[in-house]
């Protein structure tokens, strides 16, 4: 790395003052970045810090609003990923770009101008096999993509780029979909690619991975570069602090004194994700009446599975969930609603609300089975109107017209409707996932107020969020989730950026880095 000959040569890729905004929101601001030949350069940052945008700019998918990009010291203007590929830059996206019913070899040939009109399956397969073996990345070239595991599919994505002989590989959160063993194999391949003189950009949230595989780290926060260091010199706690922010605003309110009996008790919970891996892996947690427990963590560490496991939308494969002393682990969603679990899901329109029904219908979405909404098997349309009008007024839901599909309301009004319904039904627990995500300042304040009002009414609130400001503003107690387990716990008043950042990126407190 520290070969003086290399330092004098211009960087493989250099970005100067890159700005990129989407609809007035800055995703990248004034970003300078340089990638040397033969290095693995990690991009570190929280969700929404602008890592993926930056990668997409380099890969030609987005064009920056301003700023310039140089390759080997020459200014380049990439108009498309095709241009980038021709210039030797390739990216492995989080969602693979593979044709699932074609073979590995066929996928490699796809879009390669050198393949021409005639395909020689055997030649393609031989080349694919040779490439795989060279990087210790064995994949059966005759296998069809759908037959492969996610880890193997990722290898195909990388091989596809190597087949096009790219010099610069961008891997956007490649380990998010991998088992630890697959991750290690990926890291070995990354090192051997770098040793050949190729340059790699590695996006991750996980400090230990960054420590293990990268040569340099650039930390992004809110679209800006907040630091660039050689990995060897970087202390994990410094990186964590840079990632999360200088100083966290500590909550100004007093923690709730009137914390009551435990209401929601989760013991050794195990919930598998859609791929069958245990996303929640032996997690225990207690939320008491009148308490807000905030779950902090980088997205994809089991938050979704935890919430859906508790409310009954995902199958619990181990452990137990108790509600006020009664076991509700495997009761139906409806039973759990009746027992008093209110849930504000992250996906408002796709799950919390029926997009095509109007606001009044949506406000009755859970209680329509009981009076006054229904009378035996018949609906009482009048109750829909009167109760609906009450909630629309009480929660200041705007833009409502009878018959107007709720999906046409703004995000803030959608969330107000959703929360109005959840907090006005009989309940003892409120589970909320990222309740203020994407909302404007006004709606955010309303939603936060509602959550604190819930706490003051003696409801046990479980707040799952990736937004630390939100967690600190609302929680009495903070719990950090990492890879499906609770890795740390603290009163909100004792939370520091460094502590949270380390825990969230997988450094347990007992084992300093």
């Amino acid at each position: 790395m520290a070969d003086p000959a290399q330092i004098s040569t211009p960087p493989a890729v250099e970005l100067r003052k890159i700005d990129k905004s989407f609809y007035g929101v800055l995703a990248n601001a004034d970003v300078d970045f340089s990638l040397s030949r033969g290095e693995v350069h990690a991009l570190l940052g929280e969700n929404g810090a602008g890592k993926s945008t930056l990668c997409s700019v380099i890969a030609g998918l987005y064009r920056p609003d301003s700023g310039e990009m140089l390759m080997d010291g020459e200014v380049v203007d990439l108009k498309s990923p095709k241009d980038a590929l021709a210039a030797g830059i390739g990216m492995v996206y989080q969602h693979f770009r593979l044709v699932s019913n074609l073979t590995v070899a066929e996928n490699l040939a796809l879009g390669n101008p050198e393949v021409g009109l005639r395909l020689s399956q055997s030649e393609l397969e031989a080349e694919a096999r040779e490439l795989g073996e060279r990087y210790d990345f064995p994949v059966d070239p005759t296998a069809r993509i759908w037959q492969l595991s996610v880890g193997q599919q990722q290898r195909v994505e990388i091989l596809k780029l190597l087949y096009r002989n790219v010099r610069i590989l961008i891997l956007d959160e490649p380990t998010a979909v991998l088992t630890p063993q697959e991750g290690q194999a990926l890291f070995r391949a990354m090192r051997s690619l770098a040793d050949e003189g190729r340059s790699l950009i590695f996006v991750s949230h996980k400090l230990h991975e960054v420590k293990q595989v990268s040569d340099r780290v650039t930390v992004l926060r809110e679209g800006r570069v907040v630091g660039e260091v050689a990995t060897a010199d970087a202390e994990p706690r410094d990186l964590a602090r840079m990632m999360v922010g200088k100083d966290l605003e500590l909550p100004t309110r007093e923690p709730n004194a009137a914390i009551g009996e435990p209401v929601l008790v989760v013991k050794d919970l195990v919930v598998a994700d859609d791929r069958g891996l245990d996303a929640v892996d032996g997690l225990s947690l207690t939320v008491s009446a009148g308490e807000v427990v905030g779950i902090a963590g980088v997205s994809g560490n089991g938050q979704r599975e935890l919430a859906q496991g508790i409310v009954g939308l995902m199958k619990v494969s181990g452990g137990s969930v108790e509600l006020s002393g009664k076991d509700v682990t495997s009761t139906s969603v409806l039973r759990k609603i009746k027992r008093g679990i209110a849930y504000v899901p992250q996906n408002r329109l796709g799950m919390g609300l029926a997009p095509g029904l109007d606001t009044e219908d949506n406000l009755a979405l859970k209680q329509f089975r009981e009076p006054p909404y229904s009378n035996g098997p018949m609906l009482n349309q009048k109750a829909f109107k009167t109760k609906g009008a009450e909630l629309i007024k009480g929660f200041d839901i705007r833009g409502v017209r009878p018959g107007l599909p709720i999906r046409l309301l703004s995000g803030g009004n959608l969330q107000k409707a959703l929360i109005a319904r959840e907090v006005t039904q009989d309940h003892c627990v409120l589970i909320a996932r990222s309740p203020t995500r994407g909302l404007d300042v006004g709606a955010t304040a309303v939603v936060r107020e509602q959550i604190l009002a819930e706490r003051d009414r003696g409801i046990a609130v479980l707040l799952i969020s990736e937004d630390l400001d939100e967690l600190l503003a609302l929680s009495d107690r903070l719990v950090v989730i990492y890879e499906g387990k609770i890795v740390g716990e603290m009163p909100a008043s004792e939370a520091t950026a460094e502590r949270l950042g380390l825990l969230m990126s997988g450094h347990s407190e007992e084992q300093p880095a």
Partner: protein
Amino acid sequence: MSRRFIVEPRGLASWWLKLVIPIGSVLAAMVLGAAFLALTGNDWIEVYQKMADAAFGSGRGVAETLVSATPLILTGVAAAVAFKMLVWNIGGEGQLIFGAIMAAGVGIWLSESTPAVIAVVVVVAAGAVGGAFWASLSAVPKVYLGTNEIITTLMLNFIALNLMQYLVLGSSSPWRDPEATQFPQGRPIIENARIPEFFHRLDWGLFVAIGVAVAAWFVISKTRSGFEYRIVGNSFDTARYAGIRVPRKVLGTFLASGAAAGLAGSILVAGILGKMDPRSLDLGLGFTGIIVAALARLNPIAIIPVAVLMGALNNAGPSLQSIGVPDATVQILQGAILIFAVAGEFLILNRIRRPDPTAGEAKATAEAQTA
């Protein structure tokens, strides 16, 4: 501003627009049909007069139009209730045929002395059961194993059709009339199981069909179960979230859809046909029901007039041959109506307007200010 028109979602279409646009679509299709007739050297006024006359010009014509409309109402409801829940049951055809097989079977098996009230109800109900059973062959694998119902319902149409033909034309099954010596025919069902006619060939089956359409509307919009149905039709995830057992709901809807199509079969057998007649049951009524449902925008009440319109067109076709116009003209009209209706649907959902130049500038300034 480079764009000359702006297309944007309308949000909430007014009720009169929902009425005017479909009527306009039909008129537009007729204009197109007239142009086609004129270009091919026909007197389009005469053709339209002849068609109107055949369909509505006499008591017999009206009766025949309604006879044609009856099964279309039922297959239309069958398609609409399934499609509204995103269940793509395109097996109305097969469910109708299997309903007919069941109805004819029961109608043949019943003793001649069965009281008429019981016999009619049992035979008609047997059709609904048969249709639901045929639908269950696709519904159960879909709900519990995730098979694709488009494929299974479509394939089962051919199986039902061949089964019916085998029972009458290819074997000496109880469905075949042993007394038909010339050409194989279906065996007549008992006289007491026939649905009484009240106006020319029109029988009470029409009211069963209208009753089913009204009942479908009532259940969907007025009952608790219908509210659950609407939620499921909106989003499976939302329905699960609201504590609705989605698989059960989908299964129930699929079976109800099959039952409606099956009723069309039994009403034909117990009504105008009096037996299982493979030629008269193989008219694509299940498929036409899909068109009826689409034109009615999946609204069960709107299905009734749309089915009458389609019935009228079917009924008018043969009369055109007397003036030397091929009855395929009717199919051209039906196709044109469908195309215009789809285009009209776009107008109901979206509005098209001229861009407002000042609004564009205002937006640009606002963007400049935020940036």
